């Protein structure tokens, strides 16, 4: 088992972006309120102008039209300045403080305009006094409660100032002719009552608006908090999802584990994460994947399941949260944990189908870092990781088995073939008379023995072929573009003599348009396929018969047909034709010897070269084998 070092820092923490950090909700609200207020003020300014005109001309009341028109125009002019300023701030994505300053200017100028408006519309007698209430509400929205109250007191001061100065004759009172006949502004009782009510209304309005707004603000903060925790939950779900995909995407154990620890540590936002798996003895827990821990900490000493109280509990299936690792009696190496700067640990069991596999552990610098939510998360990751680990382990075992099989085949190649082939050579040497002359009967026995040994040799070769095809996945990589016609010519030539001896007509037809038909295969493999098919045709066709081999392109494939006018294949044999060691009864009757492996090998090789094989046969009429391979275009070579 290998200890992985933490992966390289290819992906570091996100770099601070040149763009200003996102505004908080409160700031964002201020920014949008500034624009909203400017919007409203257009209406307010126009309203003052319109009201002045209406009251003066339609209702024919004696108001000081000049100053009131000036106030209305003034409002529109300074609003234009605010409008332009706001646009510049937005364009430059100015900080929230700039907007705050702009808001203060707006409120101040509004209050000045408001005070003037009240003075010119009758002072304490003016119905416009009520407008102050919504200005107070606006101030309460913009500013914290303390500032809102200060503005309320300022309003009270301004109104009282105007009323008292007019009362004492320090400021000329504007009388609206035709509106009020009584001179209320000189009535002390009215004045007192009005000011008391105005003051209390202002303060109550400021209080109510502030507290309602404050409550809204708190709720917004809650929402922000909530959306943050939702974000965290999403990240974790993504980690879980990635984990699930890791299970599917790779079967390489170390890759699976390394991805798991890294993404877990990142999703939980903790310092480190590790996986320890039980070794073959089922006793020692070896670190197999680590993220964020020092080599020194990993080499602190052996972790033996039986003598480590924490490991024992976790392997029994519990998720254990240790809020204070350096002082926990469950920890085997508390001092090392302290040196590593680890304060809390969370361990979840990795459990396979039949037995515990190991431990997934998260490490945090902060004490008492892990919440019940974290426990549930790590357990879920561990459950998923267990599947991945078990799959990868199974795959590893299969790969090792596969390698052992290949090894075995190589061994057999030498150990089994070599004595058989030497025996053959010895028999031939003897039969040829190099060791002295042999009698006729001895010769006969030698020939029989030679035939049997030859059969044995063929059987071994066939078995090796079959085993090689089944085990050597890598054989696929050895494929190369091969010309089908060349292979067919070679094999047909090989059988010319034996066909002649049996008075068979063996013919090769190449129905190609000039381009050679190239397929991804190996020369040996193709030769072996055609060798088997044509030798069967020769073997099972009676003298005088015909064997036709045709090569033609068809729908992006290359088709090779081997037709004979032979004994055919009985229907009941068709199903078993490609089974290992199967031989059709009529074939056995004709040829005593045969391994029953030829067609199995053919099918195996054809499949390896991404091809197909089909067979049609009528007993006593003939058999046609059709092999198709996908064509390789020249540009793919």
């Amino acid at each position: 088992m290998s200890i992985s070092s933490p992966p390289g820092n290819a992906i570091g923490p996100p770099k601070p972006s040149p763009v200003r950090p996102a505004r908080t909700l409160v700031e964002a609200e201020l920014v949008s309120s500034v624009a909203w207020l400017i919007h409203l003020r257009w209406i307010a300014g126009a309203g003052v102008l319109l009201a002045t005109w209406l009251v003066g001309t339609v209702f024919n009341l004696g108001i000081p039209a000049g100053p009131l028109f000036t106030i209305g125009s003034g409002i529109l002019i300074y609003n234009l300045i605010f409008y332009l300023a706001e646009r510049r701030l937005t364009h430059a994505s100015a900080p929230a403080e700039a907007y705050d300053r702009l808001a203060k200017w707006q409120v101040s100028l509004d209050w000045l305009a408001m005070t003037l408006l009240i003075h010119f519309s009758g002072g304490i007698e003016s119905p416009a006094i009520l407008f102050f209430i919504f200005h107070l509400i606006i101030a309460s929205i913009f500013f914290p409660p303390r500032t809102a109250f200060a503005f309320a007191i300022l309003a009270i001061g301004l109104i009282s100032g105007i009323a008292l100065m007019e009362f004492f004759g320090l400021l000329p009172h504007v009388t609206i002719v035709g509106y009020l006949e009584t001179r209320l502004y000189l009535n002390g009782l009215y004045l007192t009552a009005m000011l008391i009510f105005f003051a209390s209304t202002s303060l109550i309005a400021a209080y109510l608006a502030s507290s309602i707004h404050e409550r809204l603000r708190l709720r917004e903060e809650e929402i922000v908090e909530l959306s943050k925790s939702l974000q965290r939950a999403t990240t974790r779900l993504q980690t879980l999802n990635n984990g699930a995909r890791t299970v599917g995407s790779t079967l390489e154990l170390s890759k699976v584990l390394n991805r798991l620890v890294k993404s877990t540590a990142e999703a939980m936002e903790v310092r480190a994460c590790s996986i320890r798996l039980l070794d073959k003895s089922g006793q020692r827990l070896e670190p197999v994947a680590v993220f964020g821990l020092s080599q020194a900490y990993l080499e602190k000493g052996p972790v033996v399941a039986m003598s480590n109280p924490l490991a024992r509990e976790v392997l029994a299936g519990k998720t254990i949260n240790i809020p204070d690792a350096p002082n926990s009696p469950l920890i085997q190496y508390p001092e090392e944990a302290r040196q590593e700067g680890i304060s809390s640990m969370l361990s979840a069991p990795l459990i396979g189908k039949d037995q515990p596999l190991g431990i997934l552990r998260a490490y945090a610098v902060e004490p008492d870092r892990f919440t019940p939510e974290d426990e549930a998360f790590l357990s879920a990751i561990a459950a998923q990781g267990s599947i991945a680990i078990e799959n990868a382990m199974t795959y590893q075992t299969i790969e090792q088995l596969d390698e052992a099989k290949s090894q075995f085949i190589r061994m057999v190649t030498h150990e089994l073939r070599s004595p058989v082939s030497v025996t053959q050579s010895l028999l031939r040497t003897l039969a040829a008379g190099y060791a002295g002359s042999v009698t006729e009967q001895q010769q006969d026995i030698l020939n029989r023995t030679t035939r049997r040994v030859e059969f044995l040799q063929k059987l071994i070769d066939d078995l090796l072929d079959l085993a090689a095809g089944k085990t050597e996945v890598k054989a696929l990589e050895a494929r190369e573009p091969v010309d089908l016609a060349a292979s067919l010519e070679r094999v047909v030539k090989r059988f010319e003599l034996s066909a002649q001896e049996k008075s068979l007509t063996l013919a090769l037809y190449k129905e190609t348009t000039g381009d050679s038909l190239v397929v991804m295969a190996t020369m040996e493999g193709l030769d072996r396929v055609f060798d088997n098919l044509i030798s069967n045709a020769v073997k099972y066709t009676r003298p005088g018969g015909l064997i036709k081999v045709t090569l033609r392109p068809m729908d992006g494939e290359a088709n090779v047909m081997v037709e004979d006018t032979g004994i055919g294949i009985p229907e009941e044999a068709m199903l078993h034709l490609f089974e290992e060691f199967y031989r059709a009864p009529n074939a056995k009757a004709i040829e005593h010897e045969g391994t029953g492996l030829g067609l199995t090998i053919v099918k195996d090789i054809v499949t390896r070269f991404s091809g197909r094989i089909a067979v049609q046969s009528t007993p006593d009429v003939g058999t046609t084998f059709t092999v198709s391979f996908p064509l390789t275009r020249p540009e793919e070579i």
Partner: protein
Amino acid sequence: MDKKQILIVDDDPDQRLTLRLPLESAGYTISEATSSAEGLAKVKEVKPDLIILDVMMDTATAGFQLALDLHSPDPESEYKDFRRTPIIMLTAIHSTTPLRFTPDEDYLPVQTFIEKPVTPEGLLAKVQEILGDK
């Protein structure tokens, strides 16, 4: 004229026998070695006209190694006198094993290959062809 000398390097005594009998009856003088090391020593001793070499001996490619040593192009090679001594190589490598050799692989300084099982007629034909005795 002296009989031509053929060195057989093969660790299998039975195989050596099947090679020796037909060659002796064809009039060649045969010497034998049972390993690559012994083969190299015998080459200097008997100065053969032809070497018949088994590929798989102590290792799966021991024969190749011996052939490469003998035919090394290095002018300082201790076997430089035998650089032109022809070699016939015996192979038992089946077509589906990962090692694939064909005689035209030019990095192998070998005249020809004979695939096992060896037939006496095939062997004699190859030997006589190479030694120009046909």
